[in-house]
């Protein structure tokens, strides 16, 4: 549809204004991450929006190398929490995707598990905080507190609804003729699933897995309750970058925040097309 010039001007102005506001927080963290300690100060007197003397000191500091300006040393570096986040989010994704894909196929093709769609939506509905007492007791009983595999298990369950619904909509969309052809050739159902269906679904599996990974990577509350020291994840560890002695280590936190923020943003942009489907439980496809 043709739009007038004045509308075009309005459009760009409005978008520019919105983006300017919406990018301030990210831009500020980016700038803080590269500032030397002298420029962190929250006194506000010499607040600079752009680092005057950009430095990588903050990144060196969180990975345990002493920083020239910081007297404090960290008792734990960021390496382990990053590993914890990676392991728990990846294996959580593997659990959710395996159980979710299998169940979605079972329901989509054979009509099994008719209770799952609703049960999983309900699971998604409840605040995790409302089931955490029993989960903490169960995890303690199973020896899963403060382990990355314990986190991976709960992440797998919490994101199962997304994996299931996403894959269900993909299986529902997939034409059955190719599967039928393979069946006529004499393949067993199981072989068809493994050798024909899954390879065809590779793009769908990849984007669903990335989507689920972003969700797992973004968790804070569950890790806060289920990890204590050895396997705390990035967001939980972040809180330890401030103490009564040092105050807020703004630059160090910003550097770590940047490390935590970059992967999901890149992944999210990569799977833009599937985001709507995932976030609306497949109610809306783009």
């Amino acid at each position, binding site marked *: *549809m043709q739009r007038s010039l004045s509308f075009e001007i309005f459009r760009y102005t*409005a978008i520019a204004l*919105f*983006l300017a506001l*919406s*990018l*301030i*927080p990210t831009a*500020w*963290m980016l700038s*803080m991450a590269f500032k030397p300690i002298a420029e962190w100060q*929250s006194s*506000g*007197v010499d*607040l600079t929006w752009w680092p005057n003397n950009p430095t990588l000191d903050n990144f060196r500091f969180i990975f345990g190398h002493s920083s020239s300006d910081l007297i404090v040393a960290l008792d734990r570096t960021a390496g382990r929490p990053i590993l914890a986040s990676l392991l728990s989010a990846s294996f959580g994704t593997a659990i959710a995707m395996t*159980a979710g894909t*299998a*169940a979605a196929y*079972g*329901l989509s*093709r*054979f009509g*099994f*598990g008719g209770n799952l769609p609703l*049960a*999983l*939506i309900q*699971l998604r*509905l409840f*605040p995790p*905080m*409302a*089931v*955490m*007492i*029993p989960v903490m007791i169960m995890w303690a009983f199973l020896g899963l507190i403060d382990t990355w595999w314990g986190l991976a298990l709960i992440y797998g*369950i919490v994101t*199962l609804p997304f994996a299931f619904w996403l894959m269900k909509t993909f299986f529902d969309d997939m034409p059955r003729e190719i599967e039928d052809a393979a069946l006529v050739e004499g393949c067993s*159902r199981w072989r068809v699933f493994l050798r024909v269906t899954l390879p065809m679904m590779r793009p769908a599996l990849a984007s669903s897995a990335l989507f689920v990974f972003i969700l797992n990577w*973004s968790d*804070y*509350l569950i890790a*806060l*309750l289920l990890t204590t020291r050895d396997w705390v994840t*990035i967001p939980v560890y972040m*809180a330890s970058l401030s103490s009564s002695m040092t105050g807020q280590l703004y630059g160090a*936190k910003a550097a770590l*925040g940047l490390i*935590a*923020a970059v992967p*999901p943003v890149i*992944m*999210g*942009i990569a799977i*833009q097309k599937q985001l*709507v489907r995932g*976030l*609306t439980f497949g109610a*809306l496809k*783009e």
Partner: protein
Amino acid sequence: MTDMTSPMPHARTDAPDAEGREERRLGFWLTLPAQLLVLFIALFPILMQIYISLTDWSPLDGIPWYRAYELWIGLLNYADLAGDPRFWSALWRTGLVMAICVPVQVLLGLGLAILFVDDFRGKRVLYSTILVPMMVVPAVAGYMFFMLFQSGGPINDLLSMISGQRVTIAWLSDPDLALFAVIVSDIWQWTPLMFLILLAGMVSVPQDQQMAAVLLGASWGRRFRTIVLPRMKTIIIIAVAIRVIENFKVFDNFYIMTGGGPGVATETISIYIYKVTQQELIWGYVAAIALAILIVLSVVSMLAIRKMRKA
């Protein structure tokens, strides 16, 4: 499922039946892991929760949870809950945050979606850039806004620049301003989500009717009201439902920005439960709160789903 163990009688004589059995077997095994996981996270925790909620048990008592019956107090926790002003105020505050955040997010998202519905130069890049906030880890977003709202931070700096005098508002230590600040962070993070969903909905509204309306000389506003909006009803309901559900759980950015404070000024229901769990450690009581919320949510969601199915 009982015939799972019985051997297949004669392989290919009655093909359709054998195939049906194979399908049933595969369907059963494929859905089993998901069923078990759901059972594992739904059944045990709920039963455990009911049991513990009837006791005064705390992990500091030195007795394991299954012997919590020694501290049996019946429905006393629920009676306490009904008269707990902090619980009701947290619930009310969660509702208030929702009542402000959701409409603002939906309206902003809708406005942006209108700007993006047809093609223009740079659309793809701008679209991706708008989505960035929703992909930032919420805890990190909380930390970003914690920095922004420091009294010597960039927001006051911007206000100083605009007003010409030095502004030193203590955003996060004033009850009302702290609530405002956490609401801003929520709106910042989730407006892109509303934009994403509403735009997808808007694009799917067929063009032909709109074209016809253009030919008839209907103004843009009129076309939007009478053609586009009615067809977006379901999508708007979905978008609102998603935000209402997620907003009810809100924890990460709020907790990192203010810890629920100053006092209880930004304490939402999740923060309240977290604090009772971690700081006051009265788990019997926490179980009662959690269960009460679960029951209310179940009833509300059942009614909502039933109503949506009818529509």
